[in-house]
């Protein structure tokens, strides 16, 4: 355990319509065992003590699973560590004297609410458009009635592991949400329960993504590199196949 000192340049913005700016703070001594968010806590405790407003940032589980946290650190959504959410990023990955530029996830579809807090409700809206299996509570057949090959279940789980954090959108030069949509479409199209609605789901989710102002995918692969859950870009290929098949075969659209 040792302490490091950092220079923090943090995006401060009072509200959605207020102008924002990078403000510089000296971190004070930071234990390398701290998580990134604990480092921000320490700064916030100090600011509060000085009567200043602390930096607003979203977080809840602090275990890398709820998808609530996230900021861009030196240009990397969730910071420089591979497959790591901001809350699971630990300060031992930084060096004494480093300067960290900390900004919110930026995208046309993500409005900044305050400081590092953004509005990601577009992600919910895409799920609402079709990211579900239409089954009511009650009357489901026995859970073992339809065997599912282990490989399919595992692949579905790989895609279902998406935490809906929006880092892929923030990383994409076009602010596309393709990886997020692809993860959900893949998860459900790999399972027999998702089959009946697969065509419709792909069409509806992609249409909603376009309408919400997310950009198009131009194969930059930045999303995959930023994703804290290792969601593979192969899912986008699968989404494209699902989408094409649906668009050709669909008589609804």
């Amino acid at each position: 355990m040792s302490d490091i000192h950092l220079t923090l340049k943090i995006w401060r913005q009072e509200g959605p319509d207020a102008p924002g700016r990078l403000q510089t703070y000296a971190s004070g001594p930071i234990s390398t065992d701290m998580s990134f968010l604990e480092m921000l806590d320490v700064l916030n405790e100090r600011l509060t003590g000085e009567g200043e407003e602390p930096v607003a940032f979203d977080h809840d589980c602090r275990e890398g699973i709820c998808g609530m946290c996230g900021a861009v650190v030196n240009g990397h959504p969730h910071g420089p560590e591979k497959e790591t959410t901001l809350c699971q990023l630990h300060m031992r990955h930084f060096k004494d004297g480093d300067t960290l530029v900390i900004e919110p996830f930026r995208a046309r579809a993500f409005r900044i609410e305050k400081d590092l807090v953004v509005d990601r409700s577009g992600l919910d809206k895409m799920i609402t458009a079709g990211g579900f299996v239409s089954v009511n509570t009650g009357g489901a057949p026995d859970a073992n009635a339809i065997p599912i090959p282990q490989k399919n279940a595992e692949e579905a789980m790989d895609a279902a592991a998406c935490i809906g954090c929006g880092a892929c959108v923030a990383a994409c030069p076009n602010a596309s949400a393709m990886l997020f949509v692809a993860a959900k479409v893949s998860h459900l199209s790999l399972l027999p329960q998702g089959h009946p609605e697969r065509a419709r789901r792909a069409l509806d989710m992609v249409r909603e993504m376009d309408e919400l102002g997310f950009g198009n995918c131009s194969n930059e692969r930045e999303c995959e590199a930023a994703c804290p859950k290792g969601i593979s870009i192969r899912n986008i290929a699968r989404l494209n196949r699902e989408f094409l098949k649906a668009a050709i075969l669909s008589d609804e659209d």
Partner: protein
Amino acid sequence: MILDSKVPGGPLAEKWDRHRFACKLINPANKRKFDIIVVGAGLAGASASASLAELGYNVKTFCLQDSPRRGHSIAAQGGINAAKNYQNDGDSIFRLFYDTIKGGDFRAREANVYRLAQVSNNIIDQCVAQGVPFAREYGGQLANRSFGGAQVSRTFYARGQTGQQLLLGAYSALMRQVKKGKVEMLSRREMLDVVVIDGQARGIVTRNMLSGAIETHAAHAVVLATGGYGNVYFLSTNAMGSNVTAAWRAYKRGACFANPCFVQIHPTCIPVHGTYQSKLTLMSESLRNDGRVLVPKNPGDRRPPAEIPENERDYYLENKYPSFGNLVPRDVASRNAKEQCDQGKGVGSTGLAVYLDFSEAINRDGSGVITQKYGNLFHMYEKITAANPMHEPMMIFPAVHYTMGGLWVDYNLMSTIPGLFVLGEANFSDHGANRLGASALMQGLADGYFVIPYTIGNYLATISSSPQDASHQAFKQVADEAAAKIGKLLDIKGKKTVDEIHRELGLLMWDSCGMARNEAGLQQALAKIPAIREEFWQNVAIPGSGLELNQSLERAGRVADFLEFAELMVIDALSRKESCGCHFREESQTEENEAKRDDENYAHVSVWEYNGDNNSPEFHKEPLTFENVQPSQRSYK
């Protein structure tokens, strides 16, 4: 007040069926005349919202996070129980019921627990139909594991992310109803109070966490699914936002609180490492299936684990409990870890940790198998501690994890305020004095998918379906009170941060009302809590205003409630002079230092009724009778 548990008559196995038949129905055309508020979108709230909306009710759902997909339930790792008996290893509904009642140390209601075991199977069917990708065998059948003190394999899981997958399933069902216009989803809304008119719950008051606006919402019934209060200890495995506010406000409006001192301390968490620490991370107890818990035999032995020879290692759980070994229930495992550390045999820099060693399992099954089983947990451990459990034992220590206590509810899950229902961890109903692993997810989903859809109709059928709105004077009054409290908090402009005071409360509760409790310690806590509360109201610092996103203010409101609630926990712990489950009163132990129950005097639920800020709460008892199981001293030897 007379507490009527409304447990139906008849044999145990028929009670739920009989009750469902006896429940009044609301015809489909009338359901759309009823509005229901659901506070919370964890497993219990999301499943309830979706199921009620499917039935045709108009549902308004609230949560703290920016999306209902993020509720604390998402962090559950290990799995969910069901009595499917797919493994043919002797499981049955009765066995799941029995294990749960016994695990809870005979302090839960038989009928509720039996119902839970009954519907457990429907939950798995429902989740699979939604597309929850549970782990499977090569042949395509669902996989199971044994978990947390069970001797059968009845736990279903999705890697180490079971809660996430179950919640995403419930969330998808919820969003489907949002699309249909049957659920209005209000995220980033904090419920600050419940509105009771003519003795019935009629709505809530919320704060819009972005604009700060105080809003009122009216309905025919209110469902609270707001989770547990483990964060009263400051450090716990709960999400940062978990709180007691909704439940506490309901308590102050007349909903009785049951067994508030029943708190589960989980044995396998990453030890505390610094004062800046903001939360504790659970390492799923499925690790105890293959990991062996140990400390050095000699107090003060500071050698690295690899240098401690086999004959100087004390596998204390295996030695003390030959038949359950490392799989003893959580309370037993936690207390034993504390006992070893109290004897100076704790490890790590603080001496407040024990080892969990996988080397035997790695030698037996190969590192591939162990990685497949626990890879993501090991990875998480390494991220936090920079140590890899494949090469050296993990260090673990108990941490506050789950609260069995909660608002009192009857068999219909209705609180003592008519029209106010409570689901999931927020109620007290099923786990007695100790919850078994993988049964909270089961309970949350049982309550939401399979119980409330029936029982709420039984209540709604007794009230008028005329439209509700928030024009009644009571709404304005409660909203004014909520706004006044916020104003008061902002006016303090003191010197201490909310976290500083919260940490102080947490430490006091951990020391005196944590893993072991005694009369003197509890009395001291009772004297100290009001002083901390006083300091808070005199000296807390909350920058910013109320009419904006203000996270210090949000935390302050929750800590203000914890500071009142903590006192009730201590009062409850004092009044229960027996040990049972997680409630270990040092005065009441067997010769072997195990928890000693006193069935003659304490076979009851302790139920507390609010009696004004300056008076002690009124105590009520719900006696517990056991007709189908014989309460026995738990033994895991």
